[in-house]
């Protein structure tokens, strides 16, 4: 400041500091999350803590900006699950995803995405269900619980979480997993952080198609039926043709290499014993 005169200097425009969280290992990809919103990053620490990793292999960076929108009505906490109808549009090197409250731009080549939405975990939960299949170069994602030796597939309400709770410590996750085969026709399932999950993988001895029943029953299904039923349980990377072909390879190989059963099971913890006795023995 000069003596006798007043010079008004505007404060420098400061961009909010970017903070980082991660890496977290989800299947084949290590994610780093960036945001100026420390509260949001704190939610991720809680949500994905067990998937924290030291690996920086196949890193993908996601940048989050919180909007001023409130979290949708009915959500009990910012960490609660919430799904919204979505639109997806192809973009150069990636795609754009929009829901009522969230928008995200994904650049697969730069391995970066920007995500905007309310300060909650669900915008990321929703985006990851598009991102993970697109980033999966060697496997395919199933709407399935992963338990020791098996994956258990079925639409919401079929019993994935119920069966996972019966499996106890043998359960890896109860909603989504990545399945990958090798040249010898052996397949492994790796857990993903949905909804109750811990990191891990298991060699697949069987695939189960779940439904509730009054008593436990098991039926081996044909390759043909397995293909039809499992094709609706895959998170297809619909925006990327090469990834679609890889997914077709995986599902074709899986149904020809790993036995697929329909498991009707009663709401009773003995369901896991039944699986151990009749499927894993």
């Amino acid at each position: 400041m000069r003596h006798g005169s007043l010079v008004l200097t505007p404060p420098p425009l400061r961009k909010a500091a970017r903070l980082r969280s991660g890496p977290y290992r989800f299947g084949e990809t290590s994610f780093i999350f960036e945001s100026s919103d420390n509260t949001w990053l704190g939610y991720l620490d809680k949500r994905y803590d067990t998937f924290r990793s030291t690996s920086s292999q196949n890193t993908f960076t996601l940048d989050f900006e919180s909007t001023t929108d409130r979290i949708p009505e009915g959500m009990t906490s910012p960490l609660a699950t919430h799904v919204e109808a979505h639109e997806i549009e192809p973009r150069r090197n990636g795609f754009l995803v929009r829901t009522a409250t969230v928008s995200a731009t994904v650049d697969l080549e730069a391995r970066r995405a920007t995500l905007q939405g309310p300060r909650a975990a669900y915008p990321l939960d929703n985006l990851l269900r598009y991102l993970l299949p697109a980033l999966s170069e060697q496997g395919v994602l199933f709407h399935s619980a992963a338990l020791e030796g098996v994956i258990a597939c079925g639409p919401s309400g079929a019993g994935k979480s119920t069966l996972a709770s019966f499996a106890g410590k043998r359960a890896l996750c109860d909603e989504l997993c990545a399945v990958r085969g090798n040249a010898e026709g052996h397949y492994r399932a790796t857990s993903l952080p949905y909804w109750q999950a811990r990191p891990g993988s298991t060699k697949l001895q069987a695939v189960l198609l779940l439904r509730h029943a009054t008593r436990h029953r098991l039926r081996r299904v044909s390759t043909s039926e397995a293909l039809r039923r499992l094709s609706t349980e895959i998170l297809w990377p619909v925006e990327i043709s090469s990834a679609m072909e890889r997914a077709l390879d995986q599902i074709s190989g899986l149904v020809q290499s790993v036995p697929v059963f329909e498991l009707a099971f009663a709401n009773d913890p003995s369901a896991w014993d039944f699986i151990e006795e009749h499927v894993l023995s």
Partner: protein
Amino acid sequence: MALRRASHVAWRRVGDETVLIHLKTKRIYVLNPSGGFFWHRLDGARGTNEILDSTAIAELPSSAVNELDLFWEKLADAELIEKGEKSEPSDSTVARNDSDYPLASFVPPELVWQEQLRNFGQSCANMSGESPLCDTAPSF
């Protein structure tokens, strides 16, 4: 008129069936063994009669040409094949595709199953967050 597989279709043999994915419409199709046999004979150089002539099917019924034409029409409607001028197939295409008919006698080729593929499978998100099933997802 020659027939060729559309370039936006991926396909694999699975057991005795053939699975196709239309990469633009994101639909999956399954062909019966007879349909798969004829699918693999498509080479951009042959039409219905030439393809049938090249097979060694015992007792080919008189309806075979119509049955195969009907099959091609269904595949063309689904944009899985294209019709056009004849072109030279590569040697490798012919060698790879001209396998023996897999059945004892002619069976009409058919597209036996199809489904729209989705990113979210049959999860809650397919239901636009409206389904009561989605409300049972655990909170943290």
